C-alpha cells in the first residue's frame, strides 16, 4: 500500500514540475532560514545552562543611585563573597571574578595581548564546570604567582610543550607561572577568560598600591575590607533548596552593618542561567530580541507552509476526479488521507535534503554574520532536536489541511466537476495570502524603521566632537613623560590637538555614589559618572561650558569640579557654580556646568557626570588629526610608543569606530531583519506566482469567452491582477498598525529615537504592490494574450 502511495506521490511531483519546484523552493528556503534562526535562538537560550550546578549558582548585584542615576551594579564590592560564605548558612561557596582590560603576556620572544584575562578565586574551578585537566585540582593556584590558562591558550603560547611550570611575563615585568590548564569554554558560556590569575595577587600588587597615598599611608588594608570600591563580579553557590530572596536580604544586612552610611543598599540575586539575556533586576537584556527572532523564524516557516497549503488546495480541484475514482473503487477516507500525507512528506524529504545541503554550505557564512559558532555536528543533540522539531512542525502544519480537504471530497460531486474546492476554499486561500503578505509587509516596515534608527544614532549630534580623533592608552613611563609626548605629537603638522582623560568617553566608565554637597537631601543616593582630565579636555571635545568656566591647569583645580546639566538638575541646583561638593576623598567647589552630552550608548539616558582635574590619573590620550593625514599622526604616535614600549604592539582606536561598535548588535539585528524580510517576500511571491498561474489556468475558458465577446488585453490583465492586488491591499491595512505598534515598542529601548513617519508605510505598501504586480503580471499577460479559439477548444 505504502509503495503504491509513494509511487503515486512521486509521479504527481514528477508530472507537475512547475508546481513541485515552486513548492520545493519555497519550503527549502523557508526551512533553511527558519532552522538557522531557531538555532540562533536556541544557542542564545542555552547560555551558561551547561553548568551542572547552574540552578544553584546566583550572581549578586547591587542597586545604586536614585533618580536618573539609579543603576544596577554587576561589579560589586569584594567582601561580599567572603562574608556571604562565612555568615550565611545557605551559601555553600562564592567566587569573585575581576577582569581588568587587556594586558600583554610574553613567552620567549612571543607577545600575546590578552583581552580576556581575569583575577579570580580558586573556587572558580569548582563552582563552575571549569575543572582543571592539568595541574593540581585541589590547589589550582599554587601561590600568588600562579596562573591557569585554557587549552587553546596553552597551545598558542607553548605549542605542544607541557605548559605546567612554564613562566611568562605579564605586563612590564611580572612573572607568572602556569600551574593549571582548563578545557576551552563552550561557545555558549558567558565566561571566556583565557588566562586566570589569583585575585589575591591583584590585592597584593595592584589594589593595595592604589589605596596607598603618596606619603605611604595605606587607606584600606585589603580588598576584603573595602566596602566602597565596586570591582568584582560575584557568584554564590547556594545549598540545595536555599531561597535566593533571603540571601539578598541577608547580604544587604551584612553590608549595612559594615557600612551604615550606604543604607539602604538593596541587593539582587540573579540565576546564572538568566544572566545572558536579562539584567539582574529581571529586565530585558536581549531576551526580547531572542523572542522576536523566534517569532520571525516561526512566521517564515508559516509563510512557507502557507505556500504549500495554498498551491495544493488550489490544485485539489484538478485532482477531484482522481480522488472520487479512488473512492468509488473502494478507497476509504483514511487511505486517501494517508496518500496525501505521504505525498507531502515526499515533497518534504526532497526540500529537507536540499535544505541540509544549503545549510552545510551556508553555515560558515551565517556564523560569521551572526557572530556565532554553530555547528551541525552529529553529537550536538540539542541542535538536532531543534531541527527535527522544526521539520516535524512544518510538515504537520502543511500536510494535514490539504490531506483532510482532498480526502473529504464527495465522489459523485467531484466526478461531476461540481466540486466546491475551487470556490469553497478560495476564501480560505485568500486569508492565507493576506497573512503571508501582512507578515512580509510588517518585516519590511520593521527593516525600514531599524535602518532609520541606526542612521539616526550614527548621525546624532552627541554634544561633543568625535571627528578625526583617535585614542590610545599610555603605558609605563609614557604617563610620567606626558608633556614630552604631547609636545612631540603637537609638533607634527597632521596633529591638531592633544589631550588626555581617565577613560574612553564613548564607553561606560567608573562611577561613584560616595559624594556630598550642600543641601544634599537625606534620601538622595545619586551616582556620578567620573571623568578625569586636564584643562584641554573640554575644549578639545568642543563641549560647551554653560555656566562658570573650565579648568585652567592651576594647582587649585585639583579641588574644582565641573558637572553636566543632568547632574545639576539631579542635585536640585539652579546655580551650582561656587557650591561645595565632595566626591570620594576630594573636597572642593563646583566651578562650571557643561552642556549635556551623550557618553555611552544612546540606549541609555544621559546620567550625571562629574569632571575632575586629575592629569595624573589620565591614561587615555586623545589625538585630533587634521583629517587629511590621519595615518601620519598614527605613525608619529606609534613611533613615540616604540621609544617606550618596544616589546608591546601599539593599539589605538578612532572614537568614531568605538562609537559605531556600540551599535554592532543593533546593526547586526538590522541586517538580519532586512535579510529575513527579503526572504519572507520571496517566499510569499513564490506562492503568489503559483496561485496566479493556477488562476490563469482555471480561468482559461472565461478569458476565452471574454475575448470572443470583445474584451481587450488590458481589461483581462486587470481582471486577473485585481483579484490579487485587493489581497495585497488588505494585507497593507492589516500590517500597518501591527508594524507601527511593534516598532514603536522596539524604539522604546532607545533613550534617543527617530520617529515612525507615515511615508515608511507608504513605501512599504507601494513596494509590496509593485512586487506582487510584477509576480502576477507575467502570468496575467500570458493568459490575456492566449488565442481564445484554442482556449475554448481546450475545455
Amino acid at each position, binding site marked *: *500500500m505504502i509503495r*503504491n502511495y509513494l*509511487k*503515486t506521490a512521486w*509521479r*504527481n511531483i514528477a*508530472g507537475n514540475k512547475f508546481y513541485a519546484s515552486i513548492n520545493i523552493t519555497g519550503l527549502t528556503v523557508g526551512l533553511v532560514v527558519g532552522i538557522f534562526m531557531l538555532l540562533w535562538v536556541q544557542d542564545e537560550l542555552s547560555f551558561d545552562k551547561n553548568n551542572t550546578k547552574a540552578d544553584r549558582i546566583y550572581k549578586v548585584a547591587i542597586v545604586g543611585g536614585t533618580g536618573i542615576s539609579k543603576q544596577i551594579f554587576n561589579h560589586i564590592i569584594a567582601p561580599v563573597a567572603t562574608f556571604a560564605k562565612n555568615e550565611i548558612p545557605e551559601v555553600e561557596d562564592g567566587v569573585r571574578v575581576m577582569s581588568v582590560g587587556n594586558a600583554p603576556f610574553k613567552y620567549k620572544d612571543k607577545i600575546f595581548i590578552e583581552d580576556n584575562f581575569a583575577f579570580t578565586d580558586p573556587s572558580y574551578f569548582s563552582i563552575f564546570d571549569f575543572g582543571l585537566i592539568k595541574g593540581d585540582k585541589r590547589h589550582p593556584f599554587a601561590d600568588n604567582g600562579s596562573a591557569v590558562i585554557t587549552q587553546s591558550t596553552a597551545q598558542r603560547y607553548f605549542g605542544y610543550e607541557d605548559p605546567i611550570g612554564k613562566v611568562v611575563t605579564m605586563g612590564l615585568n611580572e612573572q607568572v607561572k602556569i600551574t593549571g590548564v582548563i578545557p576551552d569554554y563552550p561557545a555558549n558560556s558567558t565566561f571566556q577568560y583565557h588566562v586566570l590569575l589569583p585575585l589575591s595577587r591583584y590585592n597584593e600588587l595592584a589594589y593595595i598600591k592604589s589605596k596607598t597615598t603618596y606619603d605611604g599611608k595605606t587607606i584600606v588594608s585589603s580588598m576584603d575590607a573595602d566596602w566602597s570600591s565596586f570591582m568584582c563580579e560575584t557568584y554564590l553557590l547556594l545549598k540545595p533548596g536555599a531561597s535566593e530572596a533571603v540571601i539578598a536580604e541577608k547580604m544587604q544586612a551584612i553590608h549595612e552593618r559594615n557600612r551604615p552610611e550606604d543604607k539602604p543598599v538593596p541587593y539582587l540575586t540573579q540565576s546564572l542561567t538568566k544572566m545572558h539575556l536579562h539584567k539582574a533586576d529581571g529586565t530585558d537584556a536581549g531576551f526580547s530580541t531572542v523572542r522576536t527572532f523566534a517569532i520571525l523564524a516561526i512566521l517564515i516557516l508559516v509563510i512557507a507552509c502557507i505556500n504549500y497549503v495554498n498551491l495544493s488546495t488550489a490544485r485539489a480541484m484538478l485532482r477531484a*476526479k*482522481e480522488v472520487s*475514482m*479512488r*473512492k*468509488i*473503487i*473502494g*478507497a*476509504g477516507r483514511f*487511505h486517501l488521507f494517508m496518500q496525501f500525507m505521504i505525498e507531502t512528506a515526499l515533497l518534504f524529504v526532497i526540500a529537507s535534503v536540499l535544505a541540509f545541503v544549503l545549510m552545510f554550505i551556508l553555515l560558515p557564512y551565517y556564523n560569521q554574520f551572526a557572530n556565532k559558532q554553530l555547528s551541525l555536528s552529529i553529537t550536538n543533540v540539542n541542535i538536532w532536536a531543534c531541527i527535527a522539531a522544526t521539520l516535524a512542525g512544518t510538515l504537520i502544519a502543511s500536510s494535514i489541511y490539504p490531506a483532510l480537504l482532498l480526502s473529504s471530497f464527495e*465522489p*459523485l460531486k467531484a*466526478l461531476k466537476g461540481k466540486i466546491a474546492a475551487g470556490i469553497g476554499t478560495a476564501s480560505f486561500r485568500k486569508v492565507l495570502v493576506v497573512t503571508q503578505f501582512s507578515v512580509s509587509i510588517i518585516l519590511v516596515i520593521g527593516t525600514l524603521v531599524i535602518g532609520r534608527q541606526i542612521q539616526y544614532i550614527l548621525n546624532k549630534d552627541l554634544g561633543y566632537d568625535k571627528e578625526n580623533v583617535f585614542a590610545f592608552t599610555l603605558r609605563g613611563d609614557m604617563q610620567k613623560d606626558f608633556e614630552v609626548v604631547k609636545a612631540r605629537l603637537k609638533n607634527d603638522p597632521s596633529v591638531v590637538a592633544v589631550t588626555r582623560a581617565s577613560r574612553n568617553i564613548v564607553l561606560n566608565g567608573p562611577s561613584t555614589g560616595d559624594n556630598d554637597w550642600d543641601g544634599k537631601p537625606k534620601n538622595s543616593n545619586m551616582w556620578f559618572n567620573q571623568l578625569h582630565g586636564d584643562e584641554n579636555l573640554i575644549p578639545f571635545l568642543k563641549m560647551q561650558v554653560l555656566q562658570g568656566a573650565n579648568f585652567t591647569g592651576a594647582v587649585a583645580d585639583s579641588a574644582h569640579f565641573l558637572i553636566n546639566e543632568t547632574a545639576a538638575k539631579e542635585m536640585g541646583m539652579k546655580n551650582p557654580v561656587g557650591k561645595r561638593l565632595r566626591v570620594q576623598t576630594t573636597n572642593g567647589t563646583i566651578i562650571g556646568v557643561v552642556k549635556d552630552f551623550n557618553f555611552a550608548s544612546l540606549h541609555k539616558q544621559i546620567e550625571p557626570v562629574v569632571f575632575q582635574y586629575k592629569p595624573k590619573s589620565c591614561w587615555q590620550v586623545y589625538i585630533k588629526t587634521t583629517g587629511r593625514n590621519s595615518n601620519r599622526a598614527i605613525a608619529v604616535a606609534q613611533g613615540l610608543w616604540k621609544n617606550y614600549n618596544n616589546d608591546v604592539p601599539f593599539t589605538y582606536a578612532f572614537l568614531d569606530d568605538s562609537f559605531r561598535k556600540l551599535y554592532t548588535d543593533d546593526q547586526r539585528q538590522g541586517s538580519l531583519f532586512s535579510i529575513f524580510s527579503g526572504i519572507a517576500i520571496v517566499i510569499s511571491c513564490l506562492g503568489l506566482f503559483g496561485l496566479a498561474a493556477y488562476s490563469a489556468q482555471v480561468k482559461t475558458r472565461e478569458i476565452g469567452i471574454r475575448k470572443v465577446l470583445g474584451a481587450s488585453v488590458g481589461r483581462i490583465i486587470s481582471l486577473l491582477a485585481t483579484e490579487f492586488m485587493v489581497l495585497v491591499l488588505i494585507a497593507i491595512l492589516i500590517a500597518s498598525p501591527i508594524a507601527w505598534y511593534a516598532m514603536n515598542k522596539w524604539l522604546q529601548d532607545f533613550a534617543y529615537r527617530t520617529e515612525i513617519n507615515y511615508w515608511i508605510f507608504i513605501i512599504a505598501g507601494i513596494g509590496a504592490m509593485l512586487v506582487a504586480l510584477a509576480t502576477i503580471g507575467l502570468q496575467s499577460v500570458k493568459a490575456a494574450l492566449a488565442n481564445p479559439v484554442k482556449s475554448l477548444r481546450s475545455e
Partner: protein
Amino acid sequence: MIKITNLEKFYRTEEVETIALNKLSMHVDTGEFVAIMGPSGCGKSTLLNILGMLDDPDEGSYVFNDIEVAHFNERKRADLRKHNIGFVFQSFNLIDELTVFENVELPLIYTGVSASERVKRVEEVLDKMQIMHRRNHYPQQLSGGQQQRVAIARAVVNKPKLILADEPTGNLDSSNGNDVMELLTDLNEQGTTIIMVTHSEHDARYSHRIIRLLDGQTVMENIMV
C-alpha cells in the same frame, strides 16, 4: 438482487426544487442485464448513482441482496460497494498517474488483497480483456476503446455481483463500442448482473430488459426476446 420501492430524490437550490426520481419502483434479478433509457434529465444517472450507493435517496426503500440500504451511512455504503459493485463510466475515469496494471490493481489494494494474489488476478483479467500487452502503459497512451477495456477490467477485477455502466460506449466509435458491449454480454453470461444507462437503442438491444424513464418515473418496460 435489487428491489426499490417508491424511491424519491430531490435536488434543491435556493430557489428551485427539482424532482429527479418520483416514487420510482423497480426490481432487478440476479443475472439480469437491464438497460435504462430516457431523455436527458429523466433521472437515469440519479438512479444509477443510488443503485451504486454513491448517493442516497430522500424517500423510499432500496433493498440490495435482502439488505435495506436506503439509509446506510457513507462508510457502510462504501464498504458494501467495494465488495459488490463495479463501475464503468462513459469517460473511462482512469487515473492518469497510474499504469494500466496499477489502475486495475487499485480496487484489490483497497480491499486488502495480498500482493501475489493481486498480480495473479490483474493478469488474469487483463488477459481476458486482451490488453495484457499494454499493462505498463499510461491511460493517455491508449485509444478510447482500450481505455474502456481497462476500465471494465478494473470494474470486474474484484469479481463484483453487479456492474453499473453509465453510457459505456458514449465516447467510442461504433466498432470499439460493439467490442465493449460484447465484453459486457460475456460478463453477464458468466453470471454478473449488469445495469446499464444508455442513449443508444443499439446498445440497449444487448440487454434482457429495457426500463424507460421520464421525469423520474418508469413509463415503459420492454422485455427483449
